């Protein structure tokens, strides 16, 4: 009886809407990273790219009043960050991980600085006007649909198209791919940029859809969860979607059970604990793309 009362929130659609909303940014980030890693390029800067995407789209939305421009500019930042990472990690064959660490630091810093310099606030931008915010359709965010589509489309592209074949070839064995006439640098650059673009769209979701403002710490670790989700999903966009839903569910669950039932710390830790256990359990045989993390160099 008490348990039923306790778990009543499971009956409300809001619970599932919340779960989907948690799913959106981490899945978008994860799918983006899957595309990138499938080509052999790790990008650890998801958190930073999300923040920059959210920041710039808010900025442009605020000053232009145009939703389209806001969304586009958020994506452009993803594009730019992708090109930066590709330039360092693909074209210059530099370390794939380090610049991501740097980007994360940079994003936190620049977000705070701009927030203050522009709006005199250390915490949050003004609320965006309704016309700039991405409208919800029947209470559902179009981003939810977008995420489902992106995950499905990515799966189709990776598994069923020539680009997917080439993408995987480059990530498995760049030397062999090159010998088969594929431009490794081009494929890796495109994959990195597209991956970064999707990650930035997660940021756009946070600012233009979910909150309607840029707030400091807006991504709150979601970029890192996305990173974990990539490994969790064994580099499969559909599994990433599933993983996003599972994580979303656990996260929503941990926040829906009211305080005073069990120590909140146990609830808060739950999504992370489960992810760790699943990773250690049945994912033990996950095999990453053959050349992931290894720069390709022509001589």
């Amino acid at each position, binding site marked *: 009886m008490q348990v039923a*009362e306790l778990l009543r929130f499971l009956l409300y659609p809001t619970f599932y809407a919340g779960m989907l909303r948690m799913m959106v940014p981490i899945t978008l980030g994860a799918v983006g990273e899957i595309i990138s890693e499938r080509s052999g390029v790790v990008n650890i800067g998801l958190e930073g790219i999300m923040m920059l995407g959210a920041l710039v789209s808010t900025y442009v939305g605020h000053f232009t009043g145009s939703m389209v421009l806001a969304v586009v500019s958020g994506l452009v930042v993803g594009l730019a960050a992708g*090109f930066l990472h590709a*330039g360092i990690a693909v074209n210059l064959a530099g370390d794939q991980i380090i610049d991501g660490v740097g980007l994360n630091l940079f994003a936190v810093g620049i977000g705070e600085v701009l927030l203050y310099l522009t709006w005199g606030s250390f*915490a949050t931008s003004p*609320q965006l006007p309704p016309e700039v915010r991405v409208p919800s359709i029947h209470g559902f965010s179009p981003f939810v649909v977008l995420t489902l589509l992106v995950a499905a489309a990515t799966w189709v592209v990776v598994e069923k198209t020539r680009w997917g074949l080439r993408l995987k070839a480059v990530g498995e064995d760049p030397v062999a791919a090159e010998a088969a006439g594929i431009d490794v640098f081009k494929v890796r*650059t495109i994959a990195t940029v597209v991956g970064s673009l999707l990650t930035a769209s997660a940021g756009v979701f946070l600012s233009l859809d979910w909150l309607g403002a840029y707030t400091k710490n807006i991504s709150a670790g979601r970029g890192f969860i996305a990173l974990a989700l990539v490994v969790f999903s064994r580099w499969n966009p559909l599994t990433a979607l599933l993983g996003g839903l599972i994580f979303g569910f656990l996260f929503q669950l941990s926040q829906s059970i009211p305080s*005073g039932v069990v120590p909140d710390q146990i609830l808060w830790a739950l999504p992370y604990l489960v992810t760790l256990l699943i990773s250690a359990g049945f994912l033990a045989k996950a095999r990453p793309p053959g050349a992931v993390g290894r720069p390709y160099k022509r001589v």
Partner: protein
Amino acid sequence: MSKGQLIGILVVLIVIVAGVWYATRPKAPATPAPTTPAPTTAAPTTTAPPQTTAPPKKVKVAVMFDIGGRGDLGFNDMAWMGAERAKKDFGVEVTYVQPRSEADYIPRLRELAGSGEYDLIIGVGFLLTDAIHQVAQEYPNQYFAIVDSLTPDPNVRGILFKENEGSALVGILAAYVTENNKVGVVLGMEIPVLYHFEAGFYWGVNYVENKTGKDVQIIYKYTGSFIDRALGKQVSEGMLAQGADVLYNVAGLTGLGVLDAVHDFNVQHGKEFGPPFAIGVDSCQDWMYPGHVIASMMKRVDNGVYYAIRDVVYGNFTGGIAAYGIKEGGVGISGLEELQAFMQIAQEMGTELPDAPENIVAKWQQMRAMYPEEVWNTIEEVKQKIISGEIQVPTTDSPEEIQAIRQRYGVGVLGG
């Protein structure tokens, strides 16, 4: 590096440069322009400074924030406001120090104290307690003040607020306003200060229950973060879905999500006004979403800081505890006066209001008028009783006691 990459990086640079350029162009004044009139001292019990007599000397004050820093929409921002007001009113010079980590506290405080330049050093937030205590012992002739805490040193003023009293008032309001007889409290991480809010709020709800026979269920949730706005929104939506129609924000930046959730919920349901309503915290947050934030539990850190500076300026500064409750104008429930004052402050900071100030006020008044006189009278009555000491609102700092209080008032899903 290929052309593509170069273009990419150029775009990044251009975006950043453009951003900074744009940011600096409007030259939004971070502090009130000299032309704007001095904001009214909002709290009713504030003693207006004797404007006519010039301060005896140029006073220098240092304000040290805690690491949450400006932008917490709580004590750090409010302390800044108080200091800015003092700056204008008394012409004092204020130096702000924003540490990056708590390891900075003691070295910085030592340096400020050691320089001998500052007449008063204010530490904002209980996290500075130990640092202030340490340095106050080393520099017994230096005046300190600390917000939300106290130390045993004679040269330190502990500026405390009776959050329980203010929370009691909004608790009463919540209990009246709720139509589904369900209210929610969204909290940050579990720290003792939040117990004050909890205890007072539960008492207030219970007061109405006893008075009217209403049976109100209270759900409370610690979210585990003070800085995740999206999380606050998510938790609040869950509460709204379960029928809670008044949500009390006690979660700093996370709590902004509470206001977001309530506003979005109403908009989705085509409502211009609540219920559901949100209750703001610390400053007056009523203006952020006019029609959706029924009131705010004001914690006037600004006044505490302002008074401390004033006392230094006029040589009345004393150490020990300065506890600000309803009586001292330290806490309270937001009214029209506060609404207007805080809108003005927001504007001066460069923040854009959601609507023209007069429209906000109109909407706010319309919202408040939705509830009968009885509600406001009860609140006023309890307020007076608290001031007179007839009513003692419970509070605690201990995890065990708050547990007992929660049980006493039957708080939580499994309770009442």
